[in-house]
């Protein structure tokens, strides 16, 4: 618990200027929990223009009975991290081993998997991009296939849940909508990037003026903008960022670039993915009342309601980060247990 609080404090202060990416102290690993840091190669990620590694570290947390029951198969929760943090630091910060142990103690045994998608700009946005790598497909197909081939998973849709926080909440929604066949139920925590980003000519020009070697120090907000731009409007012919900035040659905002950004906003995607969203056994969204994203997340709650998509929705007392680990442990995993095929002992 102490460590958890320390992590929260760190997250709160670790955002500024030059430090770029958030780190967290090592997670506590309770007795009986096995953690394996495996390297998973993604053909989907090969040849990306940012030079992001096509082999990703994936934290695999196995439940207590895994070793002792060599015949048993387990449901898997794929848990997607947020912006400017590695998969391992997110796993540490969220105290994933403790969540797995406490749920197992209550009879809910899961494998939880945290893939790393940290990129040159601070995060993959879980999108397909020739610039960053095809992370949407990597998560929705290759990582799932890797887990099913290498672990005793329940290798069906009914045995898989998808969850994530912030950029990972966004990833949960877009990977879920575009790969609905892979997952049974999805939970987006404090999802970012729900409504379409827009720019003024001035803000677009500011983005286009960031030097490539200065991107790391551009600050959290600008880096998030750069990461979004390279994920959603890549251009293989425009080094060094390999991106189309939202700025036309005449200094106005480029409508095709903004259209591409919009087409990647979950809010604009819902109406075209109603069948996919309805196909899930469970859909859940939550966000803290003190989170700046509460307004945006409310919009997608309303859009889903408008389209008759049943979902759990809660605005709780909290910020963007202070309750997320506890809620993953006490709400997300128990909810997943109600929806997924939990297998038999």
């Amino acid at each position, binding site marked *: 618990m102490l460590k958890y609080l320390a992590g929260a404090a760190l997250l709160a202060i670790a955002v500024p200027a030059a430090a770029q990416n958030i780190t967290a102290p090592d997670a506590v690993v309770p007795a009986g929990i096995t953690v394996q840091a495996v390297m998973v190669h993604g053909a989907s990620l090969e040849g990306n223009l940012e030079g992001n590694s096509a082999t990703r570290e994936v934290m695999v947390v196995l439940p207590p009975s895994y070793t002792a029951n060599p015949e048993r198969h387990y449901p898997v929760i794929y848990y997607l991290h947020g912006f400017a943090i590695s998969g391992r630091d997110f796993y540490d910060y969220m105290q994933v081993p403790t969540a797995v142990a406490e749920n197992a103690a209550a009879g809910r045994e899961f494998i939880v998997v945290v893939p790393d998608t940290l990129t040159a700009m601070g995060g993959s946005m879980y999108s397909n991009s020739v610039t960053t790598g095809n992370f949407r497909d990597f998560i929705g197909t290759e990582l799932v296939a890797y887990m099913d081939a290498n672990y005793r998973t329940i290798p069906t849709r009914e045995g898989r849940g998808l969850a994530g926080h912030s950029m990972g909440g966004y990833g949960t929604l877009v990977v879920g909508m575009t790969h609905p066949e892979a997952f049974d139920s999805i939970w987006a925590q404090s999802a970012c990037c729900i409504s379409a980003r827009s720019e003024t000519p001035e803000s677009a020009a500011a983005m286009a003026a960031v030097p490539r070697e200065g991107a790391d120090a551009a600050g959290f907000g600008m880096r998030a903008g750069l990461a979004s731009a390279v994920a959603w409007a890549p*251009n293989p012919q425009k080094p060094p960022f390999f991106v189309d900035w939202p700025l036309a040659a005449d200094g106005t905002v480029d409508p095709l670039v903004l259209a591409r950004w919009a087409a990647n906003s979950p809010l604009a995607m819902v109406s075209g993915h109603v*069948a996919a969203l309805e196909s899930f056994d469970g859909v859940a969204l939550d966000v803290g009342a003190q989170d700046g994203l509460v307004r945006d997340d409310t919009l997608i709650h309303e859009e889903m309601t408008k389209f008759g998509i049943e979902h759990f929705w809660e605005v709780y007392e909290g910020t963007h980060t202070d309750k997320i680990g506890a809620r993953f442990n006490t709400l997300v995993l128990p909810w997943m247990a109600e929806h997924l095929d939990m297998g038999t002992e």
Partner: protein
Amino acid sequence: MLRKFVAALGLMAACASPAAAQEAARVNWTSFHSPALEGNLEGNDPQRGVYVITPPGYDENPDRRYPVVYYLHGYWAAAPAQQEGFRLHEAVDAASAAGNEVIMVMPDGYSRFRGGFYSSGPTVGDYESMVARDLVGWVDGNYRTIAAPASRGLAGHSMGGYGTIRIAMKNPGVFSSIYMMSACCLPPMEMTAESAATIEAMTPEDIAAAQFGQLAGLSTLATWSPDPQDQSTLKVDTGLRADGTLDPLVNQRLAANSPLVLLPQYLPALNALEAFAMDIGDKDFLLEGNAQFRAELDRFGVEYEFELYEGDHGNRIAERIRTEVLPFFGNHLYRE
């Protein structure tokens, strides 16, 4: 699933007796049930009409299996009128004469407002899955197909050319080769407050009397900006607000259905195709949208074949299905 497969085998065995020789392509106008269309708000029938054209020799060779070319027709007219123009059986006959026996399938893509755009939404229905899932499953279950992506091609004209690229992008691994003819709707459709107001002012009589250009805006809006809560029977969100301005979300939804806009997210699906072709007539009103789309394919290094031929939007489609499209699939689809 297994039971269904066994039942399908039984059905095939029952129909396969070579009683009557099939010397020419046979046109079957039949129907199949599409769960993807159930519950749509326009009342479009989930029991879909479909043409299945079997090649000469289909009956005499009860053990033989065939590749399938799925063809998506354009806007405005239902499948029977489209087949009158396309004469798909003549293309299948010509292909057979060249040693390229295929089954050709054309589902009815018509809707309340004359076309479902092979897209997915609650108002019109999930025409995309109607094709990519329900139709393919039904054809494989009821005809002697080679039931594998390597032996499935997808092509279409105009709205069907749009459907071809959309379905290929969003449903990888169903079709291995695609051919877009005179594709519509590649750049995003754009709504203005004025066009939204025009659509909202349309009476049922206006809609009934609307010409192509007047109705197309409504048809695409119903497909791409549906609204189950709409108080009118249209069940669309035009985005027109009480103060006369337009909700930008409507244009964002339209953008999210534009192949030109969506392209970067779906490159892996297109790069995985065995073969990809596009064509268009040099007098086609859709030339500009096609040129923009090709420029983007080129920029992202997607390989495809392209031909600009002398013609307009519709005057050479039947001919080119026969002389270009089926020979293209003959070169690329796996056959036994």
